C-alpha cells in the first residue's frame, strides 16, 4: 500500500471508530430501563486497546464518565488479566473507585476477539435506578450503607450469564427486573460495538487495531500540544466558595500551563465529609479535565492521549480524593463545581473565551416515599421514587447572554413534566423562568427557574435535597455581577433546608428557585435596547433595569434616552 493510501485509510478508520462507539451508545439508550440513562444521557461508551488504553469514546450527556471511564478498563485488567478472558466473557463492577464514582454507575467491559485473538475491549456504563442501600440522599455513613458493591468479576462466562452473580444482584436491589434489564442493555451495547468493530476489521482486512490506536494517540497528543502552546505559560490561581452541606467551604485551584501539558492542583478546606458527598478521584478528575477541555482543544476527541495532556491532583484522603470506604453516593454535588473552579483559572489565561460562573450542580428533585408500602409512620400513600433533573442559569459568555435553565457542566436533559408525572404520583404546579435571577452584566447571566411540585395523593413525600449555590451564588466576570442565589422553600412557608432528606407534609408543596448565572462585563455598559427587551419579556423587572443596568424606561417600555444618560453618567 502506498504511503498516501495508508494515510487516507487511517483517517477513514479513525472516523469509523468514532461512529462505532456512537452506535454502541445509541444501542444503550434505546434499550435502557433507566430514565437517567435514556432521557438524560447519563451514560458512556468507549473502545480500548488490549492493554486498556481508550481509543475513542462516544460524546454523551455526562462529563463525569470522561476520564473515569478511560481509566476503568485498566482497573478491570488488574483484577482479571486479559490473558484469562475468553470470547463471550463479560466483566462487571460498580465499585466507585474502579468505575465512575458511585455505586449507581455499573461498568461493563467486554473483550473482542478476532480469529481467536483479543483485539480490543469495549466498555460502557450507565446509571442504574437502584442499588439497594438506604436509597435517596447522602445520609449513608459509609459506602457499605449505600448499597450493593460488586467487585470486578465475570457477569457472563463464554456467553452465558453467571446465575449466581445475577441472583446476588437481584436479591439486593429494589427493582431487580429493571436492574438486570439495564445490565443486559450494557452487555448488548458492548456486543453491538464489538460486532461493528469486527465488521470494520473484515472490511479493511485488519488483524489488529494497534496501529490505528498509535496513530490516534499520536495525532491527539500533538493536537493537545498545539492547543496548550497557544496559551501563555504560567500558573493561574482561583478559589471558590461552595455551599456543600452545613457551612460553605473554600476550594482553591492552581492551574499550570506547561510544556505540552496542563496541570491542576486542588487545595483548600478539603476535609472529608461523614456524608455521601465525598468525591472519588476519578470523578474529580473527570469534571476538572472537562472544564479544561471546553477551552483547550475542545474539538480533539477524547482518548488516552488527549486526556493524558491534562493532569489533575487532589490530596489523598481529602473530600476530592476520597478514600475507601467513604460514602460517595452524591459525589456530583461537589464534583459538578470542579468545572467552574477550573474555568476561573483559565479565564486569566484566555480572558476572551471563558464565560462567567454557571449555576453549577444540577437542581435535581429527588422525591420519594420510601417505607415499605402503607407504613404507618409514612402517612400512607404508595411507595415511589423519582428523579427529575432541573438546572439553573448559565454564565454570560464574552459575546452572548447566558443560557436560561441549562445544565453545565452536566449535559443531561430534563425529563418532560408529563413523563415525570406518569412515572410517579407527583404534580408540578408551576415551572417558569425566574425573573431577575440572571447576573447583571454587559452580557446578562442566564435565568434560573421556579418549580413547584406536590404529591398527587395528598400524602407526605420525602425530598433528598442537595441544592447548591444557595449561599454562594455564581460570580460574574470582568465587572459582571453575580446571579441570584437559589432558594428552597415550602408553599406553606414552613421551614425546609437546602440540603438533607426531609419531609414535604401532606397538602404542602416544595418550591425551588434555581440560581441564575453570573454576568459578564459592566451592566451599565449593556445596550439599553437589550435591557428594554429583557423587561418586555419579563426576564428583568423595571426596578432591576434602573438599579442594576441604570436604564430608565418610559411607561410604554421604550428607553428613556435622557434619563438613562443621566443615570449612567451619575457617579456610583
Amino acid at each position, binding site marked *: 500500500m502506498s504511503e498516501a493510501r495508508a494515510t487516507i485509510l487511517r483517517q477513514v478508520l479513525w472516523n469509523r471508530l468514532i*461512529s462505532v462507539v456512537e452506535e454502541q451508545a445509541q444501542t444503550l439508550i434505546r434499550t435502557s430501563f433507566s430514565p437517567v440513562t435514556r432521557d438524560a444521557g447519563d451514560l458512556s461508551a468507549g473502545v480500548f486497546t488490549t492493554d486498556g488504553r481508550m481509543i475513542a469514546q462516544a460524546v454523551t450527556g455526562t462529563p463525569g464518565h470522561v476520564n473515569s471511564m478511560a481509566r476503568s478498563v485498566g482497573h478491570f485488567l488488574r483484577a482479571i488479566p486479559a490473558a484469562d478472558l475468553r470470547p463471550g466473557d463479560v466483566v462487571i463492577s460498580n465499585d466507585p473507585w474502579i468505575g465512575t464514582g458511585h455505586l449507581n454507575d455499573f461498568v461493563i467491559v467486554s473483550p473482542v476477539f478476532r480469529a481467536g485473538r483479543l483485539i480490543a475491549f469495549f466498555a460502557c456504563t450507565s446509571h442504574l435506578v437502584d442499588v439497594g442501600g438506604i436509597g435517596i440522599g447522602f445520609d449513608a455513613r459509609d459506602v457499605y450503607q449505600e448499597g450493593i458493591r460488586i467487585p470486578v468479576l465475570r457477569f457472563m462466562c463464554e456467553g452465558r450469564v453467571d446465575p449466581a452473580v445475577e441472583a446476588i444482584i437481584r436479591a439486593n436491589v429494589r427493582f431487580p427486573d429493571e436492574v438486570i434489564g439495564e445490565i443486559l442493555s450494557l452487555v448488548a451495547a458492548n456486543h453491538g460495538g464489538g460486532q461493528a468493530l469486527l465488521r470494520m476489521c473484515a472490511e479493511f482486512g485488519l488483524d489488529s487495531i494497534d496501529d490505528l490506536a498509535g496513530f490516534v494517540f499520536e495525532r491527539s497528543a500533538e493536537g493537545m500540544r498545539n492547543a496548550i502552546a497557544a496559551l501563555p505559560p504560567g500558573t493561574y490561581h482561583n478559589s471558590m466558595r461552595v455551599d456543600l452541606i452545613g457551612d460553605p467551604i473554600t476550594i482553591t485551584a492552581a492551574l499550570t500551563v506547561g510544556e505540552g501539558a496542563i496541570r491542576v492542583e486542588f487545595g483548600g478546606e478539603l476535609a472529608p465529609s461523614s456524608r455521601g458527598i465525598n468525591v472519588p478521584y476519578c470523578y474529580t478528575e473527570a469534571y476538572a479535565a472537562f472544564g479544561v477541555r471546553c477551552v483547550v482543544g475542545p474539538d480533539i476527541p477524547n482518548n488516552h492521549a488527549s486526556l493524558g495532556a491534562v493532569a489533575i491532583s487532589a490530596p489523598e484522603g481529602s473530600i476530592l480524593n476520597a478514600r475507601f470506604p467513604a460514602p460517595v453516593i452524591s459525589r456530583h454535588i461537589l464534583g459538578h463545581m470542579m468545572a467552574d473552579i477550573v474555568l476561573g483559572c483559565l479565564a486569566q489565561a484566555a480572558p476572551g473565551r471563558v464565560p462567567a460562573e454557571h449555576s453549577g450542580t444540577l437542581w435535581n428533585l429527588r422525591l420519594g416515599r420510601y417505607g415499605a408500602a402503607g407504613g404507618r409512620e409514612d402517612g400512607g400513600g404508595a411507595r415511589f421514587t423519582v428523579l427529575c433533573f432541573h438546572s439553573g442559569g448559565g454564565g454570560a459568555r464574552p459575546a452572548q447572554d447566558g*443560557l436560561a435553565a441549562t445544565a453545565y457542566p452536566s449535559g443531561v436533559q430534563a425529563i418532560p413534566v408529563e413523563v415525570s408525572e406518569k412515572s410517579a404520583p407527583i404534580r408540578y404546579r408551576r415551572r417558569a423562568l425566574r425573573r431577575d435571577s440572571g447576573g447583571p452584566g454587559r452580557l446578562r447571566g442566564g435565568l434560573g427557574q421556579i418549580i413547584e411540585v406536590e404529591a398527587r395523593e395528598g400524602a407526605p413525600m420525602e425530598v433528598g435535597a442537595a441544592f447548591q449555590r444557595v449561599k454562594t451564588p455564581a460570580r460574574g466576570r470582568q465587572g459582571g455581577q453575580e446571579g441570584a442565589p437559589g432558594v428552597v422553600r415550602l408553599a406553606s412557608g414552613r421551614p425546609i433546608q437546602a440540603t438533607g432528606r426531609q419531609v414535604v407534609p401532606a397538602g404542602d408543596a416544595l418550591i425551588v428557585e434555581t440560581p441564575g448565572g453570573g454576568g459578564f462585563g459592566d451592566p451599565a455598559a449593556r445596550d439599553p435596547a437589550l435591557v428594554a427587551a429583557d423587561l418586555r419579556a419579563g426576564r428583568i423587572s423595571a426596578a432591576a433595569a434602573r438599579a442594576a443596568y441604570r436604564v430608565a424606561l418610559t411607561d410604554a417600555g421604550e428607553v428613556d434616552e435622557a434619563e438613562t444618560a443621566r443615570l449612567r453618567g451619575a457617579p456610583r
Partner: protein
Amino acid sequence: MIRIATDIGGTFTDIVLDDNGRLSTLKVLTTPEAPERAVVEGVARILAAAAIAPGAVGLFLHGTTLATNAVIERRGARTALVATAGFEDTVEIGREHRYDQYNLYLERPAPLVPPALRFGVAERVDVDGGVATPLVEAEIARIVAQVEQAGAQSVAVCLLHSYANPAHERRLGAALAARLPGVSVSLSCDISPVIGEFERSSTTCANAYVQPAVAAYLGRMETALAAAGIAAPILVMLSEGALASVAAAARFPVRLVESGPAGGAMLAAAVARRIGCERLLSFDMGGTTAKICLIEDGRPQFETMFEADRIYRFRKGSGLPLRIPVVDLVEIGAGGGSIARTDAALRLHVGPESAGSVPGPAAYGRGGTRPTVTDADLLLGRIVPERFAGGAIRLDRGHAARAAAEAVGAPLGLPPPADAAAIAELVEENMAGAARTHGAEKGRDLAAYTLLAFGGAAGLHAAPMAARLGIAEIIVPPNAGVGSAVGFLVAPAAFSIRRTVFAPLAALDQGTTDTLWREMAAEARAIVATAGAAQAPAAASAGGVESWAVDLRYAGQGTDITIPLDRAAWWASGEPLAAHLARLFEAEYVRRFARERTNVAIEITAWSLTLELPQPEAERLLDAPAAGAGHAAPSLRPLYDLASDRVEQAMMRERGSLRAGETITGPALIVEDHTSVLVPRGWSAHADAAGFLVLRRAGGATEARP
C-alpha cells in the same frame, strides 16, 4: 389522466408533466416573494411545449418548502400560545440541555411565540385524564380577551396532559373560534396528541405559526391556476409521503415541512415496487446534503419526530422539535458543496459546512478558497467540466487543486491527487457510516440491499459508498434530477393518525381498543376522502387500505418499538390481542437487540393508523421508455482509481447513447447533462429498456431484474 407535479425548492421549482404516462420535465427559478408565479409560468410553458390545453389537466400535485422557510426565517403569523398557568415558559425552557457538550457558546432556537404572547389559563388535567382544576367559563372569557387584545393572527393551545383528556382544550378552542373568527386556532390534541409537553407545544406553535401563510398561499395557488385555465383539484405532499387535500394541508400545515424529501422517498418506493426489490436503500445526494432512506417491501419507514431550524444544521437537539409523521430518512451534511478541513488533531472532516452556491466550490472561481467534494470530484476525473450543470458553470481545475493541496494535502502530507481522494473517501465513509448506523438502529444488515442513487451528486459516489456497505447492486433511475416531483406522481392519497395510550399489555381492554380503532379510522377516512376522490375516484370508493401499528416497550423503557399489526392475521390467529402483540414485540425485540427477553411487563404507548388509497398510476409511470437517445461516440478520459492510487484511462459514454440491454465494464464514466455516474474498476453498468442503469459489482449478487 393528465397530471402535473411541482416541487418548489429554495433555488429551483421543478415541474413534471405526466401525459398519460409520458413524462416531460422543466426546471424554472423559484420566485420567493410569490412562489405561485413561477409555478403558473412554468406550467404554462410545459403545457405549451406539449400542446396540451390547460383545461385538460386532471390533477395538480404540489410540494413546497413554504412552511419550513416561514419557520427558519421567522416570517410566520403573530402567534399566541395558551398554556396551563405556570407553564407558559415551557417552549423556552425546553429540555434544559446542551446539544453540544464541549461548546461554551451554543445557542438554542428562539421560540416561535415570544413571552408577551404566552398566556396562562387556570386549569389542570392530571396524567390519568382526571381534572385537578376545572376550567371555568370566566377564565375562558379572560383568555379570549387577552388573545384578541394581543392582536394575534393565530393561536396555539397546549394544555398539560391534553392527550389524555382534551376537554379543556376543546372548550377553549371552540370559544376562540366562535369569538375571534379571523384567528386560526391550533389545538395540541388535534395536531399532536402525544405525551411530552415541550415537544407537543413546539409542534402546535409551529402549526399555528405557519397556518395563515400556508392557507393564504394555497388559496392564491388555486386562484392563480384557475385564472390560467386549470380547474383541476390540487393535492399537497405531506412529510409522511402522502397526498392530502388543500383543506387538510391548511389544517395541519406543520406536516408540510419535509414534503420535498418525502417525494424523493416515494419515488424510491415506487422504483422498488417496479423492479420487485424488497430491500432498497435510497440515496439522494445533492449540493448540500445526502438523504438516506430504507425502503422495504416497497414502502419507506416512518418516524414520529422531526427537528426544524437546527441551529447546527445536522446536530440532533439543536432545532425545534416537531412531533409529526415523517418519512424516516437520515439527512447528513454531505453534498457536492461540503467543505473539507482538518481539525486541531489533524483529523480530516468533510462537511457539514457547505460552500453553497456562493461562493461555491473553489473550482467555480467565485472566491471560494476551501476545497469541496465537487472540487475533489473534478480533480479525480469524475466530473466532466464542460458538462457540469449543463455547461452553465465553468470549472477551474487550478483553483480546485490549490484549495485541496492547501487544506488537505499539506497538513496531512498527501500529494495530489491523493488529497482529493481523501476528501472523496471521507465523504463516502461519512455517508456509509450514517447508513450503517441507521441500519443498525433498525437491526438491518445493509449488505443485502440494492442502492438507488439519485440527485446531482449521487452517481459520483454511489459505487464507492456501496462498496463500503457491502452492497453489490446500484440502480440509477431516469429523470433523477427532478426526483421529488416525480415522487409526487407516484404517491398515494393518505393520512396518518397517532394517539398516545398508556396501558399495560396485560390490562388491554378489547372493548376500549375497538372504540379507539373506530374513532381513528373515522377521523382518517374523513380527511382522506377529498384527496382520494380527486386522485382516483374508483380507489377512493373502495375504501382504502388501513395500516395499523402499535408502539410497545418494556415498562420502564423510554424507547418504543413500532410493531405493524395486521388485523386480519390477528383475527385468523385466534389469539387474544395482548398475547398476539406480546409475541410480535418479543420477536422484534430479539431481532433488533440480539438479546433474550426479560421478565418485565410490556406496555402500549401509542396506536397509529395510516389510511392509504392505492395509487394506480405508480407502476405504469416508471415503465415509460427513456427520452431521445444521444449520439456522442465513446471516448477515453483520465480517472483516478482509489484501490490502486493511480490515474488510468477510463471509457466515457453518453448516457443517452446507451442501447437498451448494453453493458459496459468499469473503469468508466457515464455522463449526462446534470451529473455523471462513476463505474469503478470491478463494476459493470447495464442499461435497461426503461432508461434505468443497473450497476453491479463483480462477485456480488447477480440476480436478474425484470
